[in-house]
């Protein structure tokens, strides 16, 4: 039944497009209005390659995928930093520019009437030139795409993406290069789209810019949104609906000239209704239920105590330390506009000791903190860690070398399970590199097991062992603070910088947190806190640095400093 087959093929092509856009929009959190363009480019590359080199269509499609992914990456790199409206704008602009370019460069693209006579797919002597013959090929393609998509999203890589959508800064504070992840997922998405374009060109033996118009891009977005963002099955559903409905309309007698507007009206209306009443789409991202259940089995750890007491974390052997401070700050300075926030600041963190930064408001504590953790670039001065200079090291490199920070507002990933919150924090996971993810799945699997063990370990240590599969959102605030600490430990970092560990904690809990921080120090971690609650500072800090106007005013034990009337004046004003 050729027509049915053809319609299926067409629907499948759009399923692929929708899935690929979903990777970008749903999982990468980037609204791309230019997806059809990549689809079209892919088609052209494959067509031109096969026509001129006379090679097999697979090679053409492959080249299309690679080349377009490269283009996508090059495009993504600059615009990924800009915020949502600008992203939409930017991609619209790109869409229009490229589309008009394809129309105008007619001696390459054939202009409006495109390139005609693209060779049909041919494998082992079989020519897939009719819709029916082509269907199996198409089906395989769809299956492959789905395999890739699932591999990408339901993996450590996907876990990081999810994290990025929840809180970018938190992710980079856990040692992940956010930009890199986004660019990669954008490349994957565009690559797949290009593949679809190539296949499509060979299937219809024809390619023209018409399939790369803004309308097509909008149609694809509509499909994703209708189906449900960040849900791969939803994408398929969305695509089928918006392809099949108009095809059915085609059978309405004499409605021929009404179909275009009718179809437009229908999916316009659908968009409105869905955004208004069901923004999560037909099949929403049932993250919690599904994932946690599967998590339970995969984890190989149940909530039963037996497996849970896995001994003490290895971070607990205080490292055989060379002498001197493990982290040293020399003459650090940073100014915003005219204002010198941090000015020639000195500080050293002793191994296994707790150092506190105090000072009146706007004295530069937080700035200094951000400088040390790489979230700000210093204007001058040096930061040395284990006698290596780490000045200008970007934030996401810090945890990898053993420096990790916490956040005042916990910044845990609300939508993810407690366990996943911790797993993200593991450093250098092969599962976060797509090559390894596909090349050596066994290794990824093994690592994942180990990571889960380690995670479980710290989870127990902070006393959340029973909650491993809860959604973080459902924890009490105090528990979330504990989770944040566990997540910090999971990075195995040696130096921990805690931003206001006591803020927002129920007074009765303060004691407990002070206890935990002491234990950490006792276990050999080096700790630096920025804390306004002087009670806490007095309670736990070995050394206190008193800052004012971005400089170190004094250094010593809490009591020494508070005995000094001069500091009192600075702190309490005159």
């Amino acid at each position, binding site marked *: 039944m050729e027509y049915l087959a053809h319609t299926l093929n067409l629907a499948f092509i759009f399923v692929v497009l929708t899935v690929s856009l979903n990777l970008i929009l749903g999982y990468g959190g980037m609204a791309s209005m230019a997806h059809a363009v990549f689809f079209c480019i892919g088609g052209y590359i494959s067509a031109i390659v096969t026509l001129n080199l006379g090679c097999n269509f697979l090679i053409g499609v492959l080249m299309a995928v690679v080349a377009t992914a490269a283009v996508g990456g090059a495009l993504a790199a600059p615009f990924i930093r800009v915020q949502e409206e600008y992203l939409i704008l930017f991609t619209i602009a790109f869409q229009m520019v490229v589309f008009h370019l394809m129309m105008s460069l007619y001696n390459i693209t054939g202009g409006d009437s495109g390139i005609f006579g693209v060779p049909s797919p041919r494998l082992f002597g079989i020519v897939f030139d009719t819709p029916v013959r082509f269907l199996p090929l198409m089906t395989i393609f769809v299956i492959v795409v789905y395999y890739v998509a699932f591999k990408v999203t339901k993996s450590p890589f996907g876990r990081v993406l999810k994290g990025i959508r929840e809180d970018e800064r938190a992710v980079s504070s856990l040692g992940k290069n956010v930009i890199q992840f986004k660019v990669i997922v954008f490349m994957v998405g565009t690559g797949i789209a290009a593949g679809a374009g190539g296949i499509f060109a060979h299937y219809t033996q024809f390619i023209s810019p018409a399939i790369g118009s803004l309308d097509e891009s909008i149609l694809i977005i509509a499909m994703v949104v209708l189906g449900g963002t960040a849900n791969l099955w939803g994408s398929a559903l969305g695509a089928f609906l918006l392809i099949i409905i108009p095809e059915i309309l085609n059978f309405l007698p004499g409605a021929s000239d009404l179909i275009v507007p009718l179809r437009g009206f229908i999916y316009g209306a659908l968009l409105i209704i869905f955004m208004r009443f069901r923004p999560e789409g037909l099949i929403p991202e049932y993250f919690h239920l599904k994932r946690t259940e599967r998590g339970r089995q995969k984890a190989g750890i149940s909530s039963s105590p037996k497996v849970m007491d896995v001994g003490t974390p290895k971070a607990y052997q205080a490292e055989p330390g060379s002498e001197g401070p493990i982290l040293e700050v020399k003459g650090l300075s940073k100014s915003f506009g005219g204002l010198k926030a941090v000015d020639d600041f000195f500080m050293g963190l002793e191994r296994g000791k707790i150092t506190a930064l105090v000072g009146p408001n706007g004295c530069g504590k937080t700035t200094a903190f951000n400088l040390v953790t790489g979230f700000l670039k210093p204007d001058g001065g040096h930061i040395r860690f284990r006698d290596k200079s780490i000045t200008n090291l970007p934030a996401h490199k810090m945890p990898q070398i053993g420096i990790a920070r916490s956040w005042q507002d916990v910044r845990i990933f609300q939508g993810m399970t407690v366990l996943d919150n911790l797993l993200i924090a593991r450093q250098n996971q092969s599962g976060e590199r797509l090559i390894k993810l596909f090349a050596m799945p066994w290794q990824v699997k093994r690592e994942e097991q180990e990571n889960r063990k380690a995670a479980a370990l710290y989870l127990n240590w902070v006393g959340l062992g029973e909650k491993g599969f809860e959604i973080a959102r459902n924890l009490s605030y105090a528990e979330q603070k504990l989770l944040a600490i566990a997540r910090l430990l999971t990075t195995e970092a040696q130096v921990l910088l805690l931003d206001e560990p006591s803020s927002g904690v129920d007074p009765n809990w303060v004691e407990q947190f002070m206890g935990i921080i002491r234990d950490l120090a006792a276990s050999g971690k080096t700790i630096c806190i920025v804390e306004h*609650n002087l009670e806490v500072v007095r309670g736990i800090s070995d050394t206190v640095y008193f800052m004012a106007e971005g400089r170190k005013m004094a250094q010593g034990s809490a009591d020494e400093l508070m005995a000094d009337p001069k500091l009192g004046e600075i*702190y309490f004003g005159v």
Partner: protein
Amino acid sequence: MLITVKNLDVGYRDKQVVFGASLNVDVGEFISLIGHNGAGKTTLLKAVCGFLKTEGGQVIYKGADITNRSPAVNVKDGLSFVHQEKSLFPNLSVLENLQLAAYAVGKAADIERRLKVVYGLFPILQERERQMADTLSGGQQKQLAVGMAILVEPELLLLDEPSLGLSPNLVKDLGGVLKEIQKMGTAILLVEQNVKMAISLAQRIYVMRTGQIILEDTHDNMMNRENLWDLF
């Protein structure tokens, strides 16, 4: 009592910040609320004024329960608030800012007189009448913010860290102005990180730590304390 706050609980979503705080301000009284950063002073203030929803306790103003009443209504009722920042319209002229403030209470009628009062306190504002607010210096912006707040002739003026980012002598001037405002019969509830200033201005002082009010004491007792560290 002009306003009485009874063990108020305030928080953002699941994170509670203020735990059962109670305080009161009498007519024409000058009260300061001090404490370390993140102790919950600002949060408490905003809750009193209706910017944040309370989770427990109540606020009684002029005998009526105004818990969770919208700020817009409160300001009409003489409960004026000066935010830490963003308390004026950057792209509007000084005059327009003041006019809008007057509009808030719908008493634009005798605006001329009110403007005189404000200009009396802050002459600089008159000079800069036509200037865009965001072209003013930090200190002048603060003055404008306070000016807008008192333009409505409030009975209770809530100030959130007005001295933030001001040079020491500007802080002194500000202190003076606040005293004058009090003389006009406006009660003031001041949240300050400049503790000395807060104490010296106020008749009574409340101290907060990690979300609780740990101390209420008089001006004199606070002045005579040999050190304040243990309150922070």
